[in-house]
């Protein structure tokens, strides 16, 4: 709640609590009552530039010029929110917003007696149904629709078309959108309709879903038009001194002009035709005043041809009042700039440029503990860092700290003053990247002030933000109260979000070179000298690390294995076994003796066997070790592990070196021949299949036509050929190649990509079928019609390395285009879907009794997720990991 100061409380009394809101339709009396003046003049200002009394800019309507006082309330500019005026319409007009409701009511009521066209007993029944307890919202709405349609149907084809109350025969009502109605062949004027509505008894109004106390149906036909205060439609004075009026004012001018002409004609007793024309014109202007995008009505335009922005347009859509000014606002204490990577800061931190830190401030209240420090900051002024920009005195006076005032202000500073000091290392800030699709899109980071102009970000936090550094920008917000800071630090800090509430596995973790680097560090053949090990330990900031016994001594030189170095990061009581990403999924797992070293075993915090790779700490990939560390040892351990392991790996990579190049895809002659043969055989098989088909011997598969069968068999044969080629290339490309290391450790790419680079691209497809569109019965003009062979239908036997011929290249582009279009369409669709879901679910909350309820206390779930489990705190959907507990206790038991 917004705190009021004492002065405000004296002026307005204590803050009031809103008990309820009621929405209704303004009655003519109400409009006149809230109006301060009738507007009769279509002009705004006179020749001297003063507003005309009774004109659209009547000074009673509020103040828009600084220095003047309001003629109604006496307040100054900025204090007076403005006052409504009104226009007396010469003839009533329909309010477009209620046109549909007017139609519904016309259909449901009698033309003579205005009663609902339902017999008394039905009316009574509906009354009791509506009054039943718990009838509201959609249930109530359903009853009302039932009433209206049941009453309206009687007039139509079915049975009785007479009124059950007075016996009058009812005519059929036609609705000419947007604002005209016909009864049979006769036009219904707004006056006729209004007359009818006035006679509807209140009891019947209730059944039509209106509350007669605040919304009588006849009020939807306007006889008086409210004129918005000038503060809502201010006129702007251009530099040249010419006044430019708001769109709403223009529209009101039109309305008054036509209204006046209509009145004059009526008074003069003009012919019916002319009056009707003017009336219609008045209806048009009033309609477009409310909504300038009604279908069937040409939009009102400015003299320049620009479409006017009237009331509805102000509210509607993304740039409307609701989405732009109420749901979302611009805020203070925020910054936005380009992001760049920094592997040397913690995942908890964010690098803040110095010039940002000097602009954004944190209010700090002076106590006897921090008074001297704050005084020092004030003495530094606002230019030097760390300094202060403002001090706030006991009485709430804000004073800017400048070079001239800083000495006096520092002197004046006292306990209880608030100093708005520069952002410092260790301050907590919120960091955000759009689109903010999940709660991890805004996390709390600790500030680290740095030179240059970008926000610096640890690479492990890229996945939750979905950030990269190709020019991405991010936003930062500084919480201003101690409460907000504590909340951010405890709930939103990055390390608390390592495990995603969505998957229950880490979303923050290594990626790309951290994974290939981990492989280089921990593979069996990696050994390091004492100097190298010392360097790695120093860089990775491992607390109290002591060098273990060297793994081997060659000559006189001791060597330590990468596994030993890695073990330094692990808690000493950690025991775990899992399969690394490089695992080949052999039929018989050989455990520790795995020839690929893919069986990870950690005993007492020592990495006994296995390669560290994606399965250990890659973000969003069901990684075993990081998950275990965070869940069993806490988020601090998890954060320290990530910070250290990434720096360790980078150092190791720097020592060992890593590269990839086009020669990573070189396949020895023998392999190349084998691949060519396999591809050739695949094509031959396809030709054979086509031959069988042409001869009519092809047996159709159940549920498919012969053509479909052929197509699926061809696809199968070619996929098989490609897979086989892939296997061959995999056999010849070992772990000594950078590209293979990256694919197998989960750093980047996969084996399929390598196959495509080295062996063959395989079948191109659009919409899951082989390429066949383009020309009549063929994909390209270079083939014969109905050629079903592999080449003619988009099979690319070349590899990226070998290079594609023109036909292959075109096929490849066809497949590639589909992928691009799909992603574009998918993001647009899922974005809209998510928006709707969010709007529907946003005000549900988990209550203290564990139930999930909407804001009006309707229960949605009796336990969150129907099981009350927090995925981030559970193990793979289970509340407790029994296997793990047993495993752990058995181990400690045997050891003890």
């Amino acid at each position: 709640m917004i705190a009021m100061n004492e002065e405000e409380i004296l002026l307005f009394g204590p803050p009031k609590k809103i008990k309820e809101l009621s929405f209704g339709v303004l009655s003519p009396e109400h409009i006149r009552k809230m109006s301060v003046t009738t507007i009769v003049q279509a002009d705004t200002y006179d020749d001297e530039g003063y507003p005309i009394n009774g004109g659209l800019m009547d000074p009673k309507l509020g103040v828009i010029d600084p220095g003047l006082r309001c003629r109604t309330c006496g307040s100054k500019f900025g204090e007076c929110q403005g006052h409504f005026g009104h226009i007396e319409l010469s003839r009533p007009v329909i309010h477009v917003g209620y046109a549909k409701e007017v139609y519904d009511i016309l259909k449901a009521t009698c033309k003579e007696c205005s009663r609902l066209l339902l017999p008394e007993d039905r009316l009574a029944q509906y009354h009791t149904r509506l009054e039943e307890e718990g009838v509201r919202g959609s249930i109530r709405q359903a009853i009302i629709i039932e009433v209206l349609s049941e009453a309206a149907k009687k007039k139509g084809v079915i049975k009785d078309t007479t009124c059950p109350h007075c016996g009058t025969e009812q005519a059929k009502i036609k609705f000419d959108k947007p604002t005209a109605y016909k009864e049979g062949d006769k036009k219904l004027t707004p006056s006729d309709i209004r007359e009818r509505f006035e006679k509807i008894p209140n009891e019947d109004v209730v059944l039509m879903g209106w509350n007669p106390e605040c919304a009588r149906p006849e009020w939807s036909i306007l006889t008086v038009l409210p004129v918005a205060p000038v503060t809502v439609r201010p006129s702007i004075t251009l530099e040249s001194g010419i006044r430019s009026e708001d769109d709403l004012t223009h529209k009101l001018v039109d309305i008054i002009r036509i209204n006046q002409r209509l009145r004059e004609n009526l008074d003069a007793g003009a012919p019916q035709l002319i009056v009707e024309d003017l009336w219609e014109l008045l209806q048009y202007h009033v309609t477009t005043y409310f909504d300038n995008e009604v279908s069937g009505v040409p939009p009102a335009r400015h003299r320049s041809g620009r479409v006017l922005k009237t009331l509805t347009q102000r509210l509607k859509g993304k740039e409307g009042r609701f989405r732009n000014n109420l749901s979302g606002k611009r805020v203070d204490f925020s910054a936005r700039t380009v992001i760049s990577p920094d592997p040397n800061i913690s995942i908890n931190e964010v690098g803040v440029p110095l010039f940002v830190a000097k602009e954004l401030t944190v209010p700090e209240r002076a106590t006897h503990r921090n008074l001297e420090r704050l005084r020092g900051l004030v003495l530094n002024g606002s230019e030097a860092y760390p300094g202060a920009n403002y001090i706030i005195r006991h009485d709430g006076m804000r004073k800017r700290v400048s070079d001239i005032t800083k000495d006096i202000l520092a002197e004046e500073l006292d306990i209880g003053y608030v100093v708005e000091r520069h952002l410092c290392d260790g301050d907590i800030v919120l960091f955000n990247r759009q689109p903010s699709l999940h709660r991890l899109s805004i996390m709390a980071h600790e500030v680290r002030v740095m030179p240059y102009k970008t926000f610096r970000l640890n690479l492990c936090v890229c996945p939750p933000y979905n950030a990269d550094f190709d020019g991405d920008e991010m936003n930062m917000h500084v919480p201003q109260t101690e409460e907000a800071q504590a909340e951010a630090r405890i709930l939103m800090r990055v390390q608390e979000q390592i495990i995603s509430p969505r998957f229950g596995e880490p979303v923050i973790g290594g990626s790309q070179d951290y994974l290939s680097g981990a492989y280089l560090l921990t593979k069996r053949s990696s050994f390091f000298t004492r100097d190298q090990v010392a360097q790695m330990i120093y860089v990775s900031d491992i607390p109290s690390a002591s060098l273990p016994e060297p793994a081997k001594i060659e000559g006189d030189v001791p060597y330590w294995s990468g596994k030993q170095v890695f073990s330094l990061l692990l808690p000493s009581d950690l025991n775990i076994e899992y399969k690394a990403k490089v695992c080949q999924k052999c039929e018989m797992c050989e455990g520790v003796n795995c020839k690929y070293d893919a069986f990870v075993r950690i005993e007492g915090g020592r990495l006994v066997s296995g390669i560290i790779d994606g399965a250990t700490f890659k973000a969003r990939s069901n990684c075993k070790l990081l998950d275990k560390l965070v869940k069993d040892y806490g988020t601090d351990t998890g954060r320290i592990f990530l910070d250290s392991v990434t720096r360790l790996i980078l150092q190791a990579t720097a020592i060992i070196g890593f590269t990839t190049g086009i020669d990573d895809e070189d396949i020895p002659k023998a392999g190349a021949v084998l691949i060519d043969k396999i591809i050739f055989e695949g094509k031959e098989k396809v030709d054979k299949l086509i031959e069988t088909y042409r001869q009519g011997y092809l047996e159709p598969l159940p549920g498919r036509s012969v053509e479909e069968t052929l197509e699926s068999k061809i696809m199968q044969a070619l996929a098989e050929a490609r897979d086989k080629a892939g296997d061959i290339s995999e056999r010849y490309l070992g772990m000594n190649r950078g590209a293979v290391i990256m694919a197998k450790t989960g750093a980047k790419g996969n084996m399929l990509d390598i196959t495509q680079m080295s062996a063959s691209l395989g079948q191109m497809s659009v919409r899951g079928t082989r390429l066949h569109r383009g020309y009549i019965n063929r994909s390209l003009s270079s083939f014969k019609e109905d050629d079903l062979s592999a080449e003619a239908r988009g099979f690319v036997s070349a590899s990226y390395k070998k290079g594609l011929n023109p036909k292959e290249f075109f096929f490849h582009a066809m497949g590639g285009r589909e992928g691009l279009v799909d992603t574009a369409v998918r993001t647009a669709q899922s974005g809209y879907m998510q928006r709707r879901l969010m709007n529907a679910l946003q005000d549900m909350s988990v209550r203290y009794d564990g139930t999930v309820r909407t804001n009006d206390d309707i229960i949605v779930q009796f336990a969150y997720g129907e099981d009350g489990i927090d995925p981030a705190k559970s193990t793979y959907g289970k509340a407790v990991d029994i296997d793990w507990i047993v495993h752990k206790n058995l181990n400690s038991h045997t050891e003890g």
Partner: protein
Amino acid sequence: MSDSTINILKHNLVPEHVVLTPEEEEAFLVQYKINRYNLPLIKTSDPVIKMLEEEQNISLKGRIIKIIRTDSPAGEGVYYRYVIE
């Protein structure tokens, strides 16, 4: 429905539906500090409700049904619904 030979209440994909007694209803409403209209709804036209009404030969409109699901990861998942027309 009446001459149906299958009792859907016994089907293994249909969770157990229990009709709360008036006393149980009272206690339940107090426990959740709620009135019955704030509960999730189930219609009398629902096959399970129809079946229950037939079996016990009573009208269930306005009563509260307790649904016990056993396929929940938490073991037993309990859900309540208010019967409407």
